[in-house]
């Protein structure tokens, strides 16, 4: 401040803003990274659905199944199998029923036999996803404010972090192995710089997604706080799903549906990525329309919503092609940021790329937290060890290794709890927090290095055990999923094994003897290198 230069100030700001919310940010980053595979995780957590396999005629059969299941419905919505979930998910609304998100009746169907499937109740990837932006067990608005504040700190830490490094390019190519604090610093820098655009994008877009909560003053001034007027002005890129809006409208007269095969074929010809979903309004009645939605997106400027085609379901004639309008520059910018954050449009490869970037972000936050402790070890040796250092050191164990223990426990409870247990999904979540709290207690009760080791052992056992436990389910285990080319399931199991391997690697370094040095230094280096290695392992 008064007596120090601009870069020193930023270094100070970076250290303290990072530390204050580091633990929370680590949890947000980790659960957020897992959320890129939210649907895949939920699917993996319901082995009852895994026999389902998409066929070429699945779309056609799904429409036929709906004619059996809900012949009198006012509308159908059919989500076709994708690489994220191999089942058919259908929903229908009765005549006069209001169309709401999550309303109507819904069933999951086997993509081959069209028999209804009943997956075990689970909180799935949804819990991890919601936790990363509104935490848990508190008022939603509060949770979002806390996460929003942490995100703001993150943005300050990113910008001040960049200011610290005038030699950012050289720093990036510097890695001093087995040098204790230097190695930690280098890893932290390399991770941060390598995916700096990603970090900035994900943090800034995270704030933008909350902009109407955190910064509503523009709407307040320009629209006198009338959110509805603002949204209708801005224009929703996505129009509401087809369906009767009038509540007491009498159903139109019966009229047979044209064969759906040719309509699907026409859409498939237009979209190489295929069809994501089918909506039919007033099926089997006069004036019925069938709307097909494209998989993926053509542009991010309009919320990354795919193109849609609408057919006259009675005659099978093409009625219209709907492309969401590209809005003005401001809204388009917002849309690009929010689409990149949520990644709903992405195919599997982009999803993995973002997952890796997210994992690097998680590791960057983690190395930063450990660096804080390692940097203060000289003070500890001089006996000037502050109680605060101890607090940070212990909490780091639970925040990093302990969170992995919690996630592992969450997945195990999903496998172990009886399907009929009342409030089953809730118990998965309780288990997550019980495990995390236990990890914090454990970190306080045990000696620091011992705490790291034991929690890492737990991570190895939990994560390596899951793919093995999957052999209980005939269609879910690795041998079956690889043989049948079900890569969603196989990659989940392989990712679990990779996590276990990473933790084992860290353990191996913790056990490895190091060259003679003062005891405290040796300890610091061992921990340092182990986590270092973990980090390097996570970055291809």
């Amino acid at each position, binding site marked *: 401040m008064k007596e120090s230069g601009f870069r020193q100030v930023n270094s100070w700001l970076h250290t303290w803003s990072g530390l204050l919310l580091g633990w929370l940010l680590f949890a947000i980053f980790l659960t957020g990274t897992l959320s890129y595979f939210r649907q895949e995780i939920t699917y993996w957590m319901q082995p009852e659905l895994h026999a389902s396999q998409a066929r070429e005629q699945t779309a056609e059969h799904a429409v036929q199944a709906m004619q059996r299941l809900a012949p009198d419905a006012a509308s159908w919505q059919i989500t076709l199998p994708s690489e994220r979930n191999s089942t058919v998910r259908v929903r229908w609304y009765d005549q006069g029923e209001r169309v709401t998100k999550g309303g109507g009746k819904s069933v999951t169907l086997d993509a081959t036999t069209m028999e209804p499937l009943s997956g075990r109740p689970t909180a799935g990837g949804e819990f991890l996803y919601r936790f990363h932006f509104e935490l848990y067990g508190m008022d939603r608005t509060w949770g979002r404010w806390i996460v929003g504040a942490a995100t703001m700190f993150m943005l300050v830490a990113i910008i001040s972090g960049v200011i610290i490094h005038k030699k950012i390019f050289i720093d990036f190519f510097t890695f001093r192995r087995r040098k204790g604090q230097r190695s930690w610093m280098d890893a932290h820098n390399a991770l941060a710089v390598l995916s700096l655009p990603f970090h900035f994008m994900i943090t800034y877009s995270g704030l933008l997604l909350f902009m109407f909560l955190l910064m509503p*003053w523009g709407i307040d001034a*320009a629209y006198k706080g009338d959110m509805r007027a603002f949204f209708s002005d801005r224009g929703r890129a996505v129009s509401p799903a087809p369906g009767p809006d009038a509540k007491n409208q009498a159903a139109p007269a019966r009229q047979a549906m044209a064969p759906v095969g040719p309509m699907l074929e026409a859409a498939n010809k237009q979209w190489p990525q295929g069809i994501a979903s089918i909506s039919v309004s007033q099926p089997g009645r006069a004036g019925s329309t069938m709307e097909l939605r494209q998989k993926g997106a053509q542009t991010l400027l309009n919320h990354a919503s795919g193109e849609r085609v609408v057919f006259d379901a009675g005659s099978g004639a093409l009625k219209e092609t709907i492309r969401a309008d590209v809005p003005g520059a401001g809204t388009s910018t917002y849309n690009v940021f929010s689409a990149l954050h949520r990644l709903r449009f992405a195919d599997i490869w982009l999803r993995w790329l973002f997952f890796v970037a997210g994992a690097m972000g998680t590791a960057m936050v983690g190395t930063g937290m450990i660096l804080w402790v390692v940097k203060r070890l000289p003070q500890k040796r001089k006996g000037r060890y502050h109680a605060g250092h101890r607090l940070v050191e212990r909490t780091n164990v639970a925040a990093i290794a302990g969170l992995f223990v919690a996630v592992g426990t969450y997945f195990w409870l999903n496998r172990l709890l009886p399907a009929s247990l009342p409030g089953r999904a809730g118990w998965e979540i309780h288990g997550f927090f019980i495990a995390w709290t236990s990890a914090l207690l454990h970190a306080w009760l045990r000696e620091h290095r011992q705490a790291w080791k034991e929690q890492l052992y737990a991570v190895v056992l939990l994560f390596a055990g899951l793919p093995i436990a999957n052999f209980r389910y005939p269609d879910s285990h690795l041998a079956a999923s690889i043989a049948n080319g079900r890569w969603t399931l196989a990659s989940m199991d392989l990712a679990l094994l990779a996590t276990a391997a990473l933790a084992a690697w860290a353990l191996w370094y913790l056990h490895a003897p190091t060259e003679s040095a003062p005891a405290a230094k040796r300890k610091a280096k061992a921990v340092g290198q182990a986590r270092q290695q973990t980090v390097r392992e996570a970055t291809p």
Partner: protein
Amino acid sequence: MLKQGGRWLDGHRLDIVLRSLLGIAAGYALSALLAASLSLALPMARAEAVMVATMLAFLTYVALIIWAYAARNVWRLACIWAALALLAWSTMTWMERT
């Protein structure tokens, strides 16, 4: 820079508390004012102006926080911010009247 002082709230720590308050609270207030005034003042469709103003406000907030810690003189900084706030406020009231 972080010298251990004797008393809990010595000059250095008081300085930090002051700058944190200024950066976090006053910085937010100033960004909010910027969002509000630009939403009215930007020469584009109303909803567009709101989007652009709000997106800029977040970036402004970050810059203000860093500025709060980096400025040499806290009191001079407070004066500059007060002037900026006044400017934004008068823009807003003027735009509201026209």
